[in-house]
């Protein structure tokens, strides 16, 4: 089931009536979520990603625009008639019911021709529980489960009625680091097995990048960029997207384009033929610079952090906006730490420039 968002807009009236300022939570969102894909809505808190999710679910009504499931316009349809499954950030498992009762609950609400017999319900619940591997815990209460197990129960409860669309609100935020890694693989696996179109919301770019088929980066209610995770990472449309994706974060410096060359301070670091002269921000991915004696980009060397497979060269530069310039290199490469400075070579496809005023990407041809 594809999901289409058409000019979707949500405006919250201001809380303080006298101030009279409205909050535009989501502004003119257009997007077609392809059938059977896992889509991550990504952005900092307050960017409108959760509001978008809740509008898809029907729990919040859009101020403007339309939502289609397949070819059906569901904008006016209330939640229960949309056939969605929703996993809440805090799971919202009913604390007084056992795991089994929680999973059975949605099935017991079915009426008319959808009504199931007791045995059918139990079978469906068991099937869902097996899918998320909690079939051993059916008689426990939610309070007797770990966070990860609760998460699975919540997913089973959302899946048991075979929803057309599965929605997950910050699915991993309440889990510790180790469980997070494990659970996100699990979500990926479940989504692939069921083939249900799935939308999830997260503020953690690593989480979104690692499991999504498509990510949507949002900021202040406006969609910044949509695409496959790697494409967005390799080809950010603006400074915000470039900064938001990637750990460690991208290195950002001030610079200028003059006569087809990019300058950081006085040194020309890159040829960018055909680009007009302008003030720019320069973004260089940490894996895009390599220490090299003949490098064009010289920084003051601080130290080298070795972390097993990788090493991270930490340096500073007066034009840098970010506090340090970081290079991620293989730990096999030795850096002479006795020197005061380090010179880098820059990989052109990891090097982006953005207009200083609009912060939009300035494209150039890589030779």
């Amino acid at each position, binding site marked *: *089931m594809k999901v289409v968002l058409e000019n979707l807009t949500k405006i919250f009236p201001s809380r303080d009536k006298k101030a009279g300022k409205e909050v535009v939570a989501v502004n003119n969102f257009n997007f077609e979520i392809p059938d059977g894909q896992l889509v991550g809505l990504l952005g900092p808190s307050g960017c409108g990603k959760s509001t978008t999710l809740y509008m898809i679910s029907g729990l919040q009504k859009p101020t403007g625009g339309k939502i289609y499931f*397949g*070819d*059906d*316009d*569901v904008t*006016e*349809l*209330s939640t229960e*008639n949309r*056939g969605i499954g929703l996993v809440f950030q805090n799971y919202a498992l009913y604390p007084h019911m056992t795991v089994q009762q929680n999973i059975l609950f949605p099935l017991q609400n079915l009426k008319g*021709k*959808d009504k199931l017999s007791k045995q059918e319900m139990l079978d469906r619940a068991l*099937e*869902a529980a097996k*899918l998320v591997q909690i079939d051993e815990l059916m008689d426990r209460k939610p309070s007797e489960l770990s966070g990860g197990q609760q998460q699975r129960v919540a997913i089973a409860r959302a*899946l048991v*009625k*075979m*929803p*057309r669309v599965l929605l997950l609100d910050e699915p991993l935020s309440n889990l510790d680091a180790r469980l997070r890694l494990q659970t996100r693989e699990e979500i990926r696996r479940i989504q692939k*097995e*069921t*083939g*249900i179109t799935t939308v999830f919301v997260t503020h953690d770019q690593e989480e979104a990048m690692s499991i999504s088929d498509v990510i949507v980066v949002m900021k202040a209610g406006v969609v910044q960029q949509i695409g496959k995770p790697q494409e967005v990472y390799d080809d950010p449309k603006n400074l915000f997207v470039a900064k938001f994706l990637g750990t460690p974060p991208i290195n950002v410096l001030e610079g200028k384009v003059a006569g087809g060359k990019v300058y950081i301070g006085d040194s020309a670091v890159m040829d960018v033929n055909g680009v007009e002269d302008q003030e720019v921000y320069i973004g260089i991915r940490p894996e895009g610079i390599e220490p090299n004696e003949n490098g064009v980009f010289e920084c003051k060397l601080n130290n080298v952090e070795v972390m097993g497979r990788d090493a991270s060269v930490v340096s500073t530069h007066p034009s840098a906006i970010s506090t340090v310039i970081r290079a991620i290199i293989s730990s096999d490469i030795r850096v002479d730490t006795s020197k005061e400075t380090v010179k880098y070579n820059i990989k052109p496809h990891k090097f982006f420039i953005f207009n200083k005023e609009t912060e939009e990407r300035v494209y150039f041809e890589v030779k």
Partner: protein
Amino acid sequence: MSKTNANNVMQARDIQKVSVGQKIGKVLSKTLTYAFLLIMALIVLFPFYWMIISSLKTLAEYRQAVPTFWPRQIMFSNYVEAFTTAHLGDLFLNTLYVGLVSTVLSLVITVLSAFAFARLEFKGKETLFGALLATMMIPGELFTITNYITINQLGWMHTFTALIVPFLVSVFYIYLLRQNFMQIPNELYLAAKVDGTSDIKYLWKVMIPLALPTLISITILKMMGAWNSYIWPKLVANDDAHQMITNGLRNAFTDTSGQANYPVQMAAVAIVSAPLFLVFLCLRKYIMSGVSRSGIKG
């Protein structure tokens, strides 16, 4: 589970129907909810309404076979008559006196005890506090019998003292205030000690202002208690000089059914009820939070 449920898929024209149905259902359920609440509210309010219009009717109008829902002739004189026949003025003063004195004394005792339990360390503190809490389980009727004898032996029969002293200590209020005091960080107390502030000054300057909402709740409940008390005053001080308002009201109109002058009686009830209402309207927030914490009537 590899396919979405066919049953869930809805046809385009169904959607139109469903969304209209949804709206009708919503409006209908809201209407029913409001209708239910308004009817219940009318039932709750009706006795008050009936009290007021009855208190303004002439006796003849009240005794008509067909009831009137608004007095034809408004008789404020019923209120004057009620005030004089039931000696409401004296009753007011008695009740106010008992209420104020017991509130003030009770607050002092409660604050001192709560402070000791919350901030001071002494041997047997936990045991004593536990013992106090245990007494809350026992219904008051059990104490009344012996207290009646005690008051008699102390020679306090028919005095205000008998109405005030036995109820000065409320374990529950001590408990409530102690919890409140405990939320105030201990560092504040230690800092005050370093500066050489006396306990009393610290109490007065720091703890009491911070615990003010609780103290106000206690005051209101205590005053309401004096206003509504009936059984104990009836036992120990039912003479004219010391009568409390509820007892006076009940005694002045002993005829509950039959030929009583109901308009005057209703006027008296309205006069007695008015102060509580006024206090409630002014201090709604404190009363409702106090009640929801205490669960004690008056």
